[in-house]
């Protein structure tokens, strides 16, 4: 009964997420105007038939910019989540499987990165590397892969000594076979949930760095950069921050709800399960 509800919720939010991806992917082909074309006779216009969301300070179509901006914001966040997921998991698995000094070094490095405030480190790295979308992605990847390394490591450690792994080893499987065939499939659940919940976090990160001028450079449409450009002009026309703001808010919300429902689906937490306390 409750299980059905969880499944329905998951399906609804997956569908919504897919819809956002599709919109972001197809956006540039369906927009009414060129998102980069400035028209100084149509500056800060309110919404009209030609410009559904109005225009910005340079007379560019806000609707087209918001739709095309989805591509940059969402796909860079996705790419980012993919990179840190693979890299972090690889480090975590390798370090727990290898053990010894390699493990110690890896874990100390994650300690240091985890201990330090993400955004401060991101600002520092972006500051030294300079702006640009690639650098923003590198920056955010540098500060956020550690979560996965930690999680993967603890998952592998929990599985490593179980009977079925022992059995697999006795059956003559090699190290890589055990890792990829037997350990990884069982360790994936929590990692995938973390990745799903991270999409929204990374969107805030990409948009936040762009907002600070350390990410995507104008005139490329990106939601955080648009908010930054719009904030000097929103007295004349509040739509310049309203529309990109709503876009970013809705997509983060959908991805977060999707992550939540995925977690409920994969790891149903029984009520009272957490109530176990230390003696």
């Amino acid at each position: 009964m409750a299980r059905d509800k969880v499944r329905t919720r998951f399906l609804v939010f997956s569908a919504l997420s897919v819809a956002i991806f599709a919109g972001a992917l197809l956006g540039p082909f369906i927009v009414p105007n060129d998102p980069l074309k400035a028209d100084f006779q149509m500056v800060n216009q309110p919404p009209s038939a030609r410009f559904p969301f109005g225009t910005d300070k340079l007379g560019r179509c806000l609707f087209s910019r918001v739709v095309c901006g989805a591509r940059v914001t969402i796909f860079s966040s996705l790419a980012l989540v993919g990179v840190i997921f693979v890299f972090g998991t690889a480090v975590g698995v390798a370090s727990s499987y290898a053990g010894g000094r390699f493990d110690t070094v890896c874990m100390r490095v994650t300690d240091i990165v985890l201990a330090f405030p993400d955004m401060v480190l991101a600002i520092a790295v972006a500051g030294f590397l300079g702006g640009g979308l690639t650098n923003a992605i590198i920056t955010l990847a540098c500060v956020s892969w550690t979560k996965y390394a930690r999680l993967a490591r603890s998952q592998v450690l929990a599985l490593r000594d179980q009977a079925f792994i022992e059995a697999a080893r006795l059956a003559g499987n090699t190290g890589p076979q055990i890792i990829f065939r037997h350990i990884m499939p069982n360790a994936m659940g929590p990692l995938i949930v973390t990745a799903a919940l991270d999409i929204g976090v990374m969107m805030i990160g990409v948009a936040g760095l762009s907002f600070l001028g350390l990410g995507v450079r104008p005139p490329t449409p990106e939601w955080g950069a648009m908010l930054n450009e719009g904030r000097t002009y929103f007295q004349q026309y509040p739509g310049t921050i309203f529309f990109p703001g709503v876009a970013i808010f809705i997509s983060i919300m959908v991805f977060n709800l999707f992550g939540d429902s995925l977690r409920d689906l994969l790891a149903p937490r029984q009520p009272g399960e957490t109530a176990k306390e230390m003696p």
Partner: protein
Amino acid sequence: MQLIPILIGITVINFGIMYLSPSDPAERQLVLRGIMVSPETLEAMRADMGLDRPFWVQYGRWSLNLLKGDLGVSFASGRPVMLEIWECLPYTVSLALAAVIMTMVVSIPLGLLAAVRQNGVWDYLIRVATFVGGTMPGFLVGLLLIYVFALRLRWQPVISDGSLRSMILPTITLALAMTCKYIRQIRAAILEELDKEYVWGARARGVKERYVIYRNVLKNSMLTIVTLLGLSVGYLLGGTAIVEIIFTWPGMGKRVMEAINMRDYPVVQGYVIWMAIIFVSVNLLTDLSYRLLNPRIRLSDEVA
């Protein structure tokens, strides 16, 4: 005590990034002093500044200076970085503190209310509101607040001047996401506490519900709040940067963004170092207060 390797690690990373960054400090120094940049003068300046030495020698010198409190000189203004940071630090710290206070004042009563009226209207409203509030990125909240309270209603100045009045909007911006998270965590902690046997015991003995909640449950849930506070310092320190930019609040975050735009690396370095120091010391304090608040940890330590 594992904080010391973390601090050392941060200084190495910090210095390493600076060492690898494309800009040449010797060249900057020449430009700053108005000397013509030529291969010969560059060479002389490099030797003079010790930039021709190997990485570890440079790092050693730099960290020794750091221990003496010398963070170098700003490329842009020519003033000591320490001085520049000391001027901005109080603004950032007061903003962060104000946000913490606001979070506490709002989230404890609301978390309690949601927990006590579990599955009621208030609980439902608070849960929806905290989800929405927790989803909003800080920069969006800040812009919306400026639009409503500064531009439309004109209750607040658009540009902060560091006064108490102009601190209200930045504080709300910084505190909002934190408050939402806290409310949910406090609600969960109180619910968990309410489910424990001693609560039923106290109720069975006829102790007033109000007394149980304020004297026992709330007190025991304080541990959650202290843990949360320790975890939030990182968010707060990073969050101040964005908030300071939006509201032009004269703190360290705004200063470091200016420094980044001017490629003023010593100031950026100083900022990171200071953030690390604040972060590590607050975490230490959290640990200590945790011991103070939780007799179980204290006692098990003494026994062992």
